[in-house]
């Protein structure tokens, strides 16, 4: 290969390494962006909905206690508002099924909540259930705990996936940074090696050729320059050798 090709190849290697590292880093960073968006869309929304459902459920529980103590108007008002809020959040969770197996968890919440609602939808004030704490602990509170644990299971599932995605993001960030670091180090080493070759195979022969010509001019001795490679420099050296030989022959004639 000629000198031009060798130098071009050297720079292409450097450019190739940096281009590949840069491309990969950009790809990883884009993926990180997409993953963050997915994390927010898929999991955070569900976790938030679950948290609001638990809040609504706790308000419903307080309202039931008000009904049991005979405060019908206040109790019904709170329980209906809380129910509306629960339904709203539940629909968000229902529409946001993104994890394999998550649908079963959502269905469990729906089933448990239906059982719970059946208990408080029936009249309480003015019936034998009013001031009946035994009824509350035996049926209502148990049903409340069932719904709560079903929501908590849904939340744990999403939390787990969120943690996994976040860990993966950390790894992705590492992968976005590392190609750059490796490329910089590799480019540094490569530059050192490239510089050595340029010195040894290009600059060195040029110096030897110059010294050969200088020696011929100063002392008239035969031109000699040892060139290891077969490129433009070896052609130059042999051309110069011929030129010097002819010049010497002409002088002799």
């Amino acid at each position: 290969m000629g000198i031009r090709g060798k130098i071009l190849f050297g720079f292409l290697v450097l450019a190739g390494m940096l281009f590949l590292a840069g491309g990969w880093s950009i790809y990883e960073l884009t993926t990180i962006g997409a993953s963050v968006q997915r994390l927010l869309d898929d999991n955070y929304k569900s976790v938030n909905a679950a948290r609001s459902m638990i809040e609504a459920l706790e308000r419903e529980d307080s309202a039931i206690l008000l009904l049991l103590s005979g405060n019908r108007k206040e109790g019904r008002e709170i329980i209906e508002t809380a129910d509306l809020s629960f339904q709203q959040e539940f629909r968000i969770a229902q529409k946001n099924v993104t994890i394999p197996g998550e649908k079963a968890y959502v269905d469990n919440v729906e089933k448990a909540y239906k059982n719970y609602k059946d208990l408080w939808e029936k009249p309480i004030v003015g019936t034998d259930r009013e001031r009946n704490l035994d009824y509350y602990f035996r049926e209502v509170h148990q049903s409340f705990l069932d719904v709560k644990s079903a929501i908590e299971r849904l939340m744990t599932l999403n939390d787990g996936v969120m943690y996994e995605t976040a860990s993966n993001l950390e790894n992705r960030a590492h992968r976005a940074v590392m190609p750059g670091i490796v490329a910089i180090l590799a480019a540094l080493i490569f530059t050192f090696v490239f510089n050595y070759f340029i010195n040894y195979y290009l600059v060195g022969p040029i110096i030897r050729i110059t010294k050969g010509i200088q020696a011929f001019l100063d002392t008239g001795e035969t031109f000699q320059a040892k060139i290891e490679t077969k490129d433009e420099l070896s052609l130059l050296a042999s051309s110069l050798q011929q030129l010097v030989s002819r010049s010497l022959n002409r002088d002799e004639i």
Partner: protein
Amino acid sequence: MRPHIIFRYSGLILLFNALFLFISCLISLIYMDQALMPLFYSAVIACLFGAFPLLFVPSVDDITNKEGFTIVVSSWLLSCLVGLVPYILYGGEFTLTNAWFESVSGFTTTGSSILTNVEALPKGLLFWRSSTHWIGGIGIIIFALSVMPSMGRAGMVLYRAEMSPLGMENFHYRTKKTLKILVTVYVGLTLAETLGLLLCGMNLFDAVTQSFATIATGGFSTKNNSIAYFASLPVEMVIMAFMVLSGLHFGLLFTAVRGKIAEIWRSPVSRYYILAMGAGLLITALDIHGTRYPAWTDSFRYAAFQVISLGTTTGFATADSTLWPIFSQLILIFFTLQGACAGSTSGGIKTDRVVLFWKGLTKRITKTRHPHAVIAPKIGDLAVDGEMLEVGLLYIVLYIGVVFGSSLILTALGVDAMSAFSGSAAAMGGVGPGFGIVGSMGNYSLIPDPGKWVLTIDMLLGRLEIFALIMFVTARSWK
């Protein structure tokens, strides 16, 4: 010394590494795993660095001894450096120290790992991990020589760096033929074991990777529980057979394949290697019977696998030997230190030097009893001269000294004595697992980072038989 020559021939080794990195990329692509980009980028870097010197540096056939040693050692170091790139790019459990440890452990065919969950790694990276064993196993140098156009004189200069003196005993061939023999035996054994494991019901990926690790006497498994995962006697039998074969001198194996099987038994070194392993197996089986395993069959099965695995410096496991009686553990440590035959892919002191040691001892005792006797000890047809004895014994002392020294450093870093000593011996001998926290079912993740660097130096010293590395470090003052 001519640095450009070093660049050229070390570059060829990088190209060979790049080839395996590209194959690992293909595996990654097939399984659509996350190691594709790390492997591809590493392959490109290795390829560019390997190919570039070829453009500038013309081929030569007048490599000097000094250059030969430098090429050998720098090839190992460069391969270890390139080998860590995919790990570090992949991330996960691989910090810089961990990636270096895993890479050195792979190329030196040690098989120690820092991974707490091997099975979590992508298939492409697992394949690369096993490939480092395979490349390292035969000696990167031999691969370089097989692709070098100037294999004549230059070849032998390079090859000498990896041979203990007695390793030459069975090599009466010329260099080119020797290399062909080594490659043929190595590839043949790998193919035969892969086929054997496939017949035992193992899938192709596992069969190839376990074969890479066995023939290179490495020990990296693709499973957290090593070979115990497969829980299969036929699989264990196949692996045991190939571990024993891989511990023999490859020249002898080639002679055996050509019909002269008796040559294996005729060689005093391989005879000692087989008999020592048989004795070790028997003693260990007797010791663990009743204490760990109620049935004789189990005692022999597990003793055989563990003794052969450590005796050939492979490091696979089918049982947690850290739970065995201390007597059995000491027997296993003896085999960890001893290793198998020179001229094989195994590490350790090597049985050749142990035989040499006994010859020297016998000579000394006879000389004490008969001071005027003229004794010329022989191993097989080879006359053992004073220099050979001196170099051999010096090597053993130096070897144990290095193991002791690195054990001291590890204990200073807070590692317990058993783990420190067995870990150092296992690293130096290219075995892999030791005892204590670095036992056969454990890993090296709990060793502090400076300790991991010490162990990688042990691995390199052991693989390059100490002297080559010393020569490399002192290359400037070489005459």
